[in-house]
């Protein structure tokens, strides 16, 4: 008997870069990628704009940005020379699942030219490094850390909607309120951290400037964190003593890699990843009872709830300002204290998952991970992670059992 994936996908074309071998005129790895992609597009007649999934050894962000496409399935598996066979397998699974119809698997590696121009980069998280033209055209201006970049989006968001910085400060204040109910939060109390415990909007506003308009209390912390979750089949789930939290919907997207390519500074690709997740779930924003959103900065959280359809454009901050997102409010958000006050190690996607599981499995208030008033009654939760410079997003719609 054939397996479920039998003939569920096919390779429909294959092509190479214009020049391969020992090139006289050195080429970057990026160039080799792009030429091959163009050639396979022409060979098959599939326009580059129709590519929905991008699979590469760490290059997918760079490739999508360079091509100006917005994928809905992104894979950067880099496990050595066999990675591309794995990519085929992953693409097949994504196609079988009905998430995408057109997958690109791409390779470019200037093993020879690198001797002259560098940039071989087998599996860098962001492919091209120095050899990336977006890097080349932005490195002169000294921006490296996330707040250096994100502040530009905040200024545009403020300008477009007439918001003040204080509007966003409420997000930091309310997130701290949640942290004071979570003994594991870095900012749980004054005893735990000298700057811990409750804060006021005024304190957020008056704290040290990092990149105007972002003061330090508008920014997430950088802590240590480790976490893990297990995802199982329904059959295995039924055999366990823990409560399952069901993945009702999932979606992903990316708008750009470098903020230089962010078309609209007031919107992220979460509008696309959320739409995919809601559609898969057969649920919408109105069905959500709480949210866990990446809050690298207050502005990240504000824009994200707008993208998730939880607030009108420009009004995301009101969820916190009017208390709906706060402990005891009608729509709890970031009930662990968020990256702003719980923990943020650099990549905050895992704490989002863990807190979502705890809330929907009724284990958010065990005295270790939560004091009284931290457990909400929510049975549905939308989770959204944001990566890069407001670049890539992943959205999950989770629902409690029964």
């Amino acid at each position: 008997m054939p397996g479920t994936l039998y003939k569920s996908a096919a390779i429909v074309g294959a092509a190479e870069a214009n020049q391969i071998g020992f090139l006289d005129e050195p080429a970057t790895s990026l160039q080799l990628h792009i030429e091959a992609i163009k050639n396979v597009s022409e060979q098959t007649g599939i326009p580059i704009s129709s590519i929905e999934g991008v699979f590469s050894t760490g290059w997918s962000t760079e490739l999508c940005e360079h091509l100006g496409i917005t994928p809905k399935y992104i894979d950067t598996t880099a496990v050595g020379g066999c990675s591309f066979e794995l990519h085929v397998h992953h693409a097949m699974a994504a196609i079988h699942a009905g998430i995408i119809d057109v997958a690109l698997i791409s390779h470019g590696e200037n093993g020879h030219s690198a001797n002259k121009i560098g940039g071989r980069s087998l599996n860098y998280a962001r492919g091209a490094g120095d050899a990336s033209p977006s890097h080349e055209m932005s490195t002169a201006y000294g921006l490296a850390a996330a707040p250096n970049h994100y502040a530009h989006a905040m200024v545009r968001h403020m300008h477009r909607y007439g918001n003040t910085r204080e509007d966003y400060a409420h997000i930091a204040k309310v997130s701290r309120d949640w942290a004071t109910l979570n003994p594991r939060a870095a900012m749980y109390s004054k005893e735990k951290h000298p700057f811990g415990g409750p804060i006021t909007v005024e304190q957020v506003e008056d704290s040290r400037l990092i990149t105007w308009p972002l003061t330090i209390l508008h920014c997430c912390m950088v802590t240590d964190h480790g976490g893990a979750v297990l995802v199982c089949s329904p059959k295995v789930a039924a055999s366990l003593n823990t409560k399952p939290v069901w993945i009702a919907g999932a979606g992903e997207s990316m708008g750009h890699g470098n903020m230089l390519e962010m078309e609209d500074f007031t919107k992220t690709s979460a509008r696309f990843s959320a739409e995919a997740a809601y559609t898969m779930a057969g649920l919408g924003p109105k069905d959500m009872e709480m949210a866990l959103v990446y809050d690298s900065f207050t502005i990240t959280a504000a824009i994200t709830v707008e993208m998730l359809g939880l607030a009108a454009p420009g009004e995301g901050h009101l969820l916190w300002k009017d208390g709906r997102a706060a402990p005891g409010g009608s729509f709890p958000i970031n009930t662990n204290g968020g990256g702003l006050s719980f923990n943020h190690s650099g990549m905050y996607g895992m704490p989002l998952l863990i807190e979502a599981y705890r809330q929907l499995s009724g284990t958010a208030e065990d005295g270790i991970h939560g004091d009284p008033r931290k457990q909400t009654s929510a049975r549905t939760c939308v989770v959204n992670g944001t990566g890069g410079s407001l670049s890539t997003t992943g959205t999950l719609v989770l629902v409690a059992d029964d």
Partner: protein
Amino acid sequence: MSYDKPIPSKGTHTSPFWEGTKAGKLMLPRCEDCNRVHWYPRHICPFCHSMNLEWIEGSGEGTIHTYAVQHLVFSKWAKETPYVTAYIDLKEGDRMLTVLRGVDPEKPEEIRIGAPVRVEFEQADEDTFIPFWRVVEE
């Protein structure tokens, strides 16, 4: 040589831009098929995916799309803080990052989104002139 800020390492397909800066010109990549200018320079037009690209001399004019004031950076720019960075909408289309000149970093509220700016170039080393944008009178 007094320039001590980061100097970009140059790619294989961007030399017309860097050559232009030496002559005080802002060279921009344009697609011969859809006629749109894009920034940063590509191997392929990001709008229509044509590979027929050319370089044109830009006007060097633009407007402020958004901005921020850097108070904490870890590069050689650290000693210049606070300084203003901005994204510039190019007159020809698409957008460029820059360090903005002719503005007061202590008065960020007075910087105006949409204000006209003009490019200028500062020599960084023998081969490199870095573009900066300056707010101009309307």
